[in-house]
């Protein structure tokens, strides 16, 4: 009720997914029965929706779909399993466990995601339970890795600022724990009711809980029949839900993403987050965080009511205020987000619909205190810095380029084996970067030589032999496993880069970092709207090409060419790259140049993305 004005949630009849969540009894659904069905390796769309909250969803090998249909075989259903890794930090023991599971139950590779999580692909339904169990035994979880809840909290690995990083990472972990769903369903289904993560205060479901859930579900149904505006407004219980005090029985309208950046690096793309924190370090001490809200990448082709958006800076808070701030922000989205149309349900649309001013005042009201004015900061880049670096604590880090975040052994590059061998002797940690790269962190001076020898032995380098564009490129998984993909990404981007490299070489730009990003669909997992050059898949072999995002992730890209294939991509980019090479100003990034040169207009807000 900001400024005395009554702001009404958008309303509309709840979407199918809302009904499903309502009826799922806090994410249980019929998953137990579904897992026991041996006749299919898949599950119904409804169960699959619920599976996301448990950190997994069903995929199939789309390369084999038609062939298998002829063979009277169902699609090659398999599950992607995402492991929540706050800030992307894992112990060597955890690395070994994930490696083991990838070999035993996955497709023999580990995917490091653009949100610093581990991803296993190709897990069969019958192996899900054991895999999830072993993930939990390694003190990791898959709970809330996907679904309409807060996702893996990102944070800058920032190895050089070891003391600050440690503190920031601690907050990333605390946010993850604090915002995790509290339903016992996860433990019931996967861990036979056991409680392994001591941070999650979960009690077995009691009588009271079940009853309350039913009452609340009934209330929601009733509200649904009244339809329109009130339906969704009533869904969240006023902090009274006995099972999910924060989320309520229907959780959030859509996913919710939080990331913490530590300037000058904006590697986590803070402006792409629903809720972003920018660490403010003064005199070497973490004094608090600037707060951004309402960023997000996803959109739908051909629907201008959907668009990528940048988070907006709303103020500053102290470190010990960030949990409460996140919780209250989430409850506002819970109460005001669009539960009728899923593609308009992200937090960015809630804010753009009602205005930033409304949001800040609603937030202040719920917090009972006000944010301080934002503090000054500077971002310089969003990419990673490769190679060896030394911490203030005297330990060493090694940052290596990983092609599309895919840890796999290939001929001449025994990456997966090498990392396994390193994990066996490593006493520091493994840090997954937001750019799908990997940092071997906190290597003791004594171990440095041994680690370096293993890197050499297995042909693992920091990636300096690759061109700068290759090292800063980002792609999502796309085909063959992602159900949303309209075109290739991970499998094709290296080929396209191979064709661009001679052009760059010719133009003398081999060592110029230009952020190139490619996704198979406009959902935007590789954050293409923040790529200086970006490709979003339209159909097999065809992409929309975007340009002009800020090098440090502070400006969106703009559509430049629609529906073009490889030849047109090269033909289009070649003169622009030559133009850039000859007429750029000192230290001028490609994204800035294409705007100055008039190729595209600058997009400072998602609302101008389509204009």
């Amino acid at each position, binding site marked *: 009720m900001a400024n005395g004005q009554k702001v009404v949630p958008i309303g509309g009849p709840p979407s199918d997914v809302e009904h499903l969540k309502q009826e799922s009894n806090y994410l249980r659904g019929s998953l137990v029965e579904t897992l026991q069905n*041996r*006749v*299919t*390796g898949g599950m119904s769309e409804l169960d699959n929706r619920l599976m996301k909250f448990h950190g997994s969803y069903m995929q199939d090998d789309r390369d*084999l779909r038609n*062939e*298998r*249909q*002829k*063979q*009277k*075989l*169902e699609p*090659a259903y398999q599950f992607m399993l995402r492991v929540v890794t706050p800030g992307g930090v894992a112990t060597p023991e955890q690395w070994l466990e994930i490696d083991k599971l990838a070999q035993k139950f996955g497709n023999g590779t580990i995917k490091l995601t653009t949100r610093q999580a581990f991803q296993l692909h190709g897990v*069969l339904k*019958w192996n899900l339970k054991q895999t999830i169990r072993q993930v939990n035994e390694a003190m990791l979880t898959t709970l809330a890795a996907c679904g309409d809840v807060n996702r893996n909290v990102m944070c800058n690995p920032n190895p050089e600022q070891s003391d600050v990083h440690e503190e920031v990472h601690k907050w990333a972990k605390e946010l993850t724990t604090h915002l995790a769903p509290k339903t016992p369903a996860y433990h019931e289904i996967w861990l036979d009711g056991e409680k392994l993560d001591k941070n999650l205060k979960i009690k077995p479901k009691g009588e009271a809980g079940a009853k309350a859930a039913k009452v609340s579900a009934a209330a929601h149904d009733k509200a649904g029949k009244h339809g329109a505006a009130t339906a969704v407004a009533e869904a969240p219980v006023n902090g009274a839900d006995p099972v999910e005090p924060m989320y309520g029985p229907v959780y959030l309208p859509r996913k919710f993403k939080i990331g913490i950046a530590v300037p000058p690096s904006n590697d986590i793309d803070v402006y792409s987050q629903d809720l972003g924190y920018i660490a403010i370090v003064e005199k070497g001490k973490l004094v608090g965080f600037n707060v951004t809200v309402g960023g997000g990448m996803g959109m739908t082709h051909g629907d201008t009511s959907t668009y990528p958006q940048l988070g907006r800076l709303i103020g500053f808070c102290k470190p010990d205020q960030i949990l409460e701030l996140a919780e209250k922000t989430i409850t506002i989205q819970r109460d005001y987000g669009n539960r009728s149309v899923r593609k308009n349900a992200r937090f960015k649309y809630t804010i753009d619909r009602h205005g930033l001013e409304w949001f800040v005042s609603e937030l202040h009201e719920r917090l009972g205190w006000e944010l301080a004015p934002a503090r000054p900061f500077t971002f310089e880049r969003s990419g990673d810095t490769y190679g060896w670096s030394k911490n203030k604590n005297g330990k060493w880090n090694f940052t290596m380029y990983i092609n599309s975040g895919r840890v796999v052994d290939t001929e001449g590059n025994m990456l997966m084996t090498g990392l396994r061998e390193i994990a066996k002797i490593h006493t520091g940690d493994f840090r997954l970067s937001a750019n799908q790269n990997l940092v071997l962190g906190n290597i003791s001076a004594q171990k440095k030589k041994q680690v370096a020898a293993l890197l050499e032995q297995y042909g693992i380098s920091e990636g300096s032999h690759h061109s700068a564009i290759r090292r800063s490129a980002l792609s999502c998984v796309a085909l063959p496993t992602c159900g949303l993909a309209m075109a290739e990404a991970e499998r094709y981007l290296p080929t396209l880069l191979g064709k661009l490299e001679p052009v760059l070489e010719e133009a003398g730009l081999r060592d110029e970092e230009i952020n190139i990003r490619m996704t198979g669909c406009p959902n935007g997992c590789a954050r293409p709207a923040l790529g200086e050059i970006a490709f979003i898949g339209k159909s097999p072999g065809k992409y929309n090409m975007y340009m002009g995002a800020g090098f440090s992730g502070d400006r969106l890209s703009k559509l430049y060419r629609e529906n073009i294939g490889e030849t047109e991509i090269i033909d289009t980019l070649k003169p622009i790259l030559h133009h850039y090479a000859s007429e750029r100003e000192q230290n001028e990034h490609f994204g800035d140049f294409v705007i100055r040169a008039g190729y595209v207009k600058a997009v400072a807000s998602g609302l101008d993305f389509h204009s």
Partner: protein
Amino acid sequence: MQLKVTNSPFSEEQAALLNTLLPTLTGTQVQWLNGFLAFYGGGTGVTPIENGLTAAPDIAAASSVLAAAPGAAAIAEAVQVQAGAPREATVLFGSQTGNSQRLAGRLADKLKALGFEVTLSAMNVYKPANLKKTAHLFIVASTHGEGDPPDNALPFYEFLYSKRASGLEGLKYSVLALGDTSYEFFCKTGRDFDERLAELGAERIADRVECDLDFEEPASLWFGKVLDAVQASVAGGAAVASQAVSAPAADSQGTENLYSRTNPFRAEVLTTINLNGRGSDRETRHLELSLEGSGLSYQPGDCVGIYPENDPALVDAIIAQMNWKPNEIVLPERQGEDATLRGALLRHFEITVLTRPLLEKAQSYSADGRLAELLKPENKDELRSYVNGRDLLDLLQDFGPWTLPAGAVTTVLRKLPPRLYSIASSNKANPDEVHLTIRKVEYESHGRKRGGVCSVQVSERLEAGDTLPLFIQENPNFKLPADPSTPVIMIGPGTGVAPFRAFLEEREELGSEGKTWLFYGDRHFVTDFLYQTDWQRMLNSGALSKLEVAFSRDSEEKVYVQHRMLEHAAELYGWLQEGAHIYVCGDEKHMAHDVHKALLTIVEQQGGLDSEAAAAYVAELQATQRYQRDVY
């Protein structure tokens, strides 16, 4: 009786030639010609002899009269009943695939045509007490696996070897044994019946005839001997040679259809699909074949026999090994037939299996004394180990030099037998089509890659548009219950699931209400789940009520169908108590045995019975046709 255009399939000219020739023939000549014609019929191609004159062997037996006019009137006209003789006979069969049953039926028809009162019965439904009331007993029995009686022969076999069987003096009998010389215990069941009946005092009136896979010719000879003997018997020992007649209607299939085992239909391949997904170590073909224009039809549970072709590479290797000429003519030349050596080795003779008779015949052409040595009775074990996993090429390589001329292959080698496959489709659901499920058999032995003749041909050399010579082989011992509301339990891992696709398609097509429960298993869920989407559709439509699957290589502990049966013991027993029929199809050696054991365990535990009572319960299921198996 004279052959005319109206009462025979011959042209006027042919009939005239035959009418001139036939009355001049001596008995020996007829017999010789009969054998020649049987071979000339050859198992492939269109031959008027075996269809128009199924009775040819019987003519030999009768030695003078030739009755070729089909239909009951002709039979009645020809039959001359002898006064005073007890014309009564019992024909029993023990059959796994239906061959014995079919041959028994043919003998019964011939006996009826002679005016006999005939009891034709499967051994498991025959009351052994009636043995004492019958004058003549004729047995047709096949041998299964390692010398075992077929399922429906077991109760009778056990009875004969029990103390209850005795005093069969006065019973006259003869046995026709079916088998396969590539097995060590060739024709053992028939031999056992023959010897046991003699021990029990019965009188053998015609010697036992043992048939290899190519049974038509010896079976016809046996019919002749039996009919001669039985007439001598009813005439009080006096030889009767004049009034026997043949019964053209004897082979019911022969009259219904132009096409049969001896005259296969060349069916066009409509579709051939590998049912195993990528990454599987197996290859299983789903074949859809057109029966259009053949007049052939089938029931769920029936089989298709395919006449395959040998691997051309193996044929060429054999020819090269012997320095033979591939184009040398070795078969009687007939229109449209390849009479060359290469053609004969490709399509007419078995070259992938070694048998004792083959080695014995070949031995006289070998200069290597070790072959004769190997064939000595005391070297039985060495012989068995030698033939195991070896083929004709090995033999030719191992025991040269040879004086074997190319033409001799027609006498040394066994005819290429047809391969039987359980039909995987319902005729009602797929008019004019038949579907088969054929898994490629491939293995390495003695340093060379080898494979199943038919399965490799189908997997590697058969495309849509090609044709396959085939016939329908009825299998009366594997049939859905007559009452469509009777629950059905089906256990068919691997390609054993084929007939159950036919069963379920049939029940789906008929809208049958009865419950159905399928147990399926293979190695890997992702790649080896044969007909997965068919089952899923049938589960949705209700044609299939329940489906249990076991994939042995997906978990650390191997899980098989029998484990799933045991997991559902109470419910499975409940179905049996409701009158369910239970069917097992597939591997005989391990699976069928393990499933049988599981069934006994379930009945014992759930029924609260001791092991003897459980065995009796299961035996009763078998005797009442509620437990049927099609195992191989």
